[in-house]
C-alpha cells in the first residue's frame, strides 16, 4: 500500500535505528537514563525536524513518513520513540500551527538542531479532565505571571522550551485556558522530580513547577482562551504518533517472538511447529497489520487536510491495545526467559507499551472521543 518513497524511507530509518539506536536500548532502560548518545545521529537524520519547513532549518517529511520514523524507532527502543513523538507532535507542531512568524523563527531552528521542546498539559488533578487546569497566568502590563505545576512532562529536564497551558482569568470559575511558550532558563521555571516509571525508562519524564514565572507578552501562543482547543488539535496529531509508537513496540515484540519460536527446541522440535505458537504469531501479525493500516490512514488524512480526529482516536486506541496484547503474547512465546531483563527485549517492550494505553488520553478517553463523534455526527462510517 505504501508508495516507493515511503518504502525507501522506512528502509533507511530501519537501517539507521538498527545501527544507532538498538545497541543502547537495554542499557538506557536498565540505567534509567536519557539517550544523549542518540541526539546527534537523530538530529542529522532529520528526526527532530520532521514537521519543520526548510526555511526554519528543518528536513520536512510528510506525516506518513514521520509516523513511519516513530514506528521504526519504537520497534527497537520505545524511549527514543516517545522522545521523537513528543518533540515533533507536541512540541514543534503547536508553534508551527498556532505560532507567529517571530515565534517560529525563534524556536523552530533550535528545535531542528535537536534542542527538545516539551508539552505541558496534565496536572496532578487534571489528567483526563484537562479542562480542570489549575495553573494560572495573570496578565500585567509587561507580561504574564504564571504559577502552577505540570506533570508527566516528556523530556522535561532536557527541553529548552515548553508549550504549557494555564487558566488566564483570576476568577476560579472561569475556565478560559491559554497556551504559552516557556523557556527553561527563565527564573521561576523549575524542573521537578524525575518519575520512576514502569517502562520507557530511557525517556525523561518529570514535573515542571512555575513559581511567579514571568512570561513576556510575545510568548503567548495564539489567542487568549484558545489553549484548550489548541491542545485538542495538537493531541489529534499526537495520538497518531502514540499509535505509531505502540505499533513499533508490537512489531518489535513480534520480530523477537518469531525468531525465538523458530530457534527454541522443546519436545524434539522448534516450538514454532506447535499450532499453539503458530496461531499466537498469526494473531499478533494480523492485529498489528490492521493497526498499521489504521495509523497510516489517519496520517494520510492529516496530510490531505481532511478531518481525522475520530481516526486518530481510533488508531491510538486500537494500536495501543493490539500492541499491549502482542507484547504480552511475545513474552508468553519466550516463557520464563522472556521474563528476564535481557537477554531478550520483550520484557522491556511489554513494560514500555503499557504507556500507549495511557499517554495522550487513556483508552477510556479515546472511547469517549469516538463515542462523542459518533453521536454528534450520527455518521457510522
Amino acid at each position, binding site marked *: 500500500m505504501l508508495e516507493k518513497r515511503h518504502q525507501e524511507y522506512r528502509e533507511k530509518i530501519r537501517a539507521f535505528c538498527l545501527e544507532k539506536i538498538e545497541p543502547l536500548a537495554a542499557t538506557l532502560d536498565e540505567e534509567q537514563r536519557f539517550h544523549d548518545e542518540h541526539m546527534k545521529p537523530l538530529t542529522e537524520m532529520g528526526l527532530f525536524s520532521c514537521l519543520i519547513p526548510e526555511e526554519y532549518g528543518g528536513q520536512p517529511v510528510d506525516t506518513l513518513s514521520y509516523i513511519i520514523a516513530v514506528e521504526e524507532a519504537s520497534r527497537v527502543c520505545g524511549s527514543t520513540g516517545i522522545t521523537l513523538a513528543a518533540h515533533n507532535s507536541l512540541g514543534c507542531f503547536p508553534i508551527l500551527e498556532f505560532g507567529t512568524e517571530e515565534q517560529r523563527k525563534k524556536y523552530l531552528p533550535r528545535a531542528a538542531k535537536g534542542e527538545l521542546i516539551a508539552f505541558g498539559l496534565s496536572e496532578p488533578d487534571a*489528567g483526563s479532565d484537562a479542562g480542570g487546569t489549575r495553573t494560572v497566568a495573570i496578565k500585567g502590563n509587561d507580561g504574564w505571571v504564571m504559577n502552577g505545576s505540570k*506533570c508527566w512532562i516528556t523530556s522535561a529536564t532536557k527541553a529548552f522550551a515548553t508549550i504549557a497551558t494555564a487558566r488566564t482569568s483570576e476568577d476560579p470559575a472561569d475556565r478560559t485556558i491559554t497556551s504559552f511558550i516557556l523557556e527553561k532558563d527563565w527564573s521561576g521555571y523549575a524542573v521537578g522530580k524525575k518519575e520512576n516509571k*514502569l517502562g520507557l525508562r530511557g525517556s525523561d519524564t518529570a514535573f515542571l513547577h512555575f513559581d511567579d514565572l514571568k512570561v513576556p507578552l510575545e510568548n503567548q501562543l495564539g489567542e487568549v482562551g484558545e489553549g484548550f482547543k489548541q491542545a485538542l488539535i495538537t493531541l489529534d496529531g499526537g495520538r497518531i504518533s502514540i499509535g505509531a509508537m505502540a505499533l513499533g513496540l508490537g512489531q518489535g515484540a513480534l520480530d523477537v517472538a518469531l525468531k525465538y519460536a523458530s530457534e527454541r*527446541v522443546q519436545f524434539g522440535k522448534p516450538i514454532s511447529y506447535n499450532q*499453539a505458537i503458530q496461531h499466537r504469531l498469526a494473531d499478533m501479525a494480523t492485529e498489528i497489520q490492521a493497526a498499521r493500516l489504521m495509523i497510516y490512514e489517519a496520517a494520510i488524512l492529516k496530510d490531505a487536510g481532511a478531518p481525522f480526529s475520530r481516526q486518530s482516536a481510533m488508531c491510538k486506541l486500537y494500536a495501543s491495545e493490539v500492541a499491549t496484547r502482542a507484547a*504480552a503474547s511475545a*513474552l508468553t512465546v519466550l516463557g520464563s526467559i522472556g521474563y*528476564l531483563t535481557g537477554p531478550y527485549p520483550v520484557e522491556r517492550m*511489554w513494560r514500555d507499551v503499557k504507556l500507549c494505553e*495511557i499517554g495522550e488520553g487513556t483508552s477510556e478517553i479515546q472511547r469517549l472521543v469516538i463515542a462523542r463523534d459518533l453521536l454528534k455526527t450520527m455518521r457510522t462510517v
Partner: protein
Amino acid sequence: MDFYLTEDELELKQMARELADKRIYPRALEMDEEGITPQDLIDECAELGYFGFTVPEEYGGLGMSATAFMGVLEEICAACAGFGIMLSVHNSLTCEILKLYGSEELKKKYLPVMATGEKIGAYCITEPDAGTDVASIKCTAVDKGDHYVLNGTKTFVTNACFAGVFIVFAKTDPEAKHKGISTLVVDAGSEGLSIGQPEKKCGIKASDTREINLNDVKVPKENLIGNLGDGFKMCVGILNSGRIGVSFQAIGIARAALNEAIKYSKERVQFGQAICNFQAIQWKLAEMATRIDAGRLLAYRAAQLKDQGKPCHRESSMAKLFCSQMANYVCNEAVQTHGGYGYIKEYPVERYFRDARVTELYEGTSEAQRMVIARDLLRE
C-alpha cells in the same frame, strides 16, 4: 469465599493478614527495588511456623492442610508476591516431595530443620534447554557405588542464594526419557555446587532467582527421593501442589490490585466527580472482582481435592491457567484505572502488574496447562 476453610484455618489466615499488612507490605517497595528477601522477615515467618506449614507435627511442622496454607499464602502474596513465592516453593515443592516420597531417614534428617526455616528449600528442574519439555533435561547423576556424581546446570532456581537444601532432578539413565529421571537431595555447600548471579527479572524481584551449576557433586545414595527413575512421576505429582500455590499467589496479587483500584477510583476526582462514578470504571471493578472470586473458587477446589488425596491434575491446571490470566487482566485494569499514576512506582499497582506476569510462566506456562487439561479431556 472462605467456606473452604475451618474456623481455625480462618484464624491462621487472619494472623497472616496482620503480618502481611503490618510487617511485609510496608517493605514491599524496598524489597522490589533492591531485589532482596530480608532475613528478619524470614525469621518472623519461621516463628509462626510458616516454613513447616504442611509438614506433619512429628517432623516439627504445623501439620496443617494444603488448603489452610493457601489461605495464608494469598495473604502474604497480597503484600509481596516475591516474598510469597519463597514460602510457596519451600512448602509446596521441597517439603512436599520429601513428605510424600522421602524415606523415613530423609524425612527425619531434613523436614525438622526445614520446618523451622533453618534450611530453606530450592527446587531444581528447569535447564536452559529444558523448560516445558521436562523429560529432555541433561543434568546427570552417575552411580558410583555408594554415591552419585551429579553434573549439569539448572536455571530459574528460586531461593538459590540462601537455600540449605536443593532438590535436584537428574538423569540416572540418559538413554531413557521420562523414566530415566531421578530426584536427589543436595546439601548447600556441597563441593562442586556453585550458585550463579541473581537474575534480573521483570517482577517478583524480592524472590531470589539464579542459575546453579553442579560440577562432579557427590551425593550419598540415601539422598535419593523415592525410587530410581521415579523423578518424572513425582515431579508431575508435586507440580499440582506448585500450581495451586501459584494460583493463590495470583489471587493475592489480583486482590491487592483491586483494592488499590477501588481506593484510587474513590479518591481521584476528574470532571468534577470521583472517577468511580463513571460506568467505564465501575464496569472494570465489577469484572475484576467477579474474576477474582471465580479464580479463588477454582483454586480452593483444587487444594481441597489434593488434601483429600483425590486426583487433581486437571483441576490444578485449570486453577493455575485461570488465576494467572485473571491476575494479569486485573492488574492491567488496575493500572488503567490509575492512568499515568499506575505507570510509576509510587503506586503499588505498577509492581503488581509486573509481578502478575510471571504467574503465567512458571510451574508450567499457560500453554503447558492447556496441554495438561486437553490431554485429560481427551483421555476420558
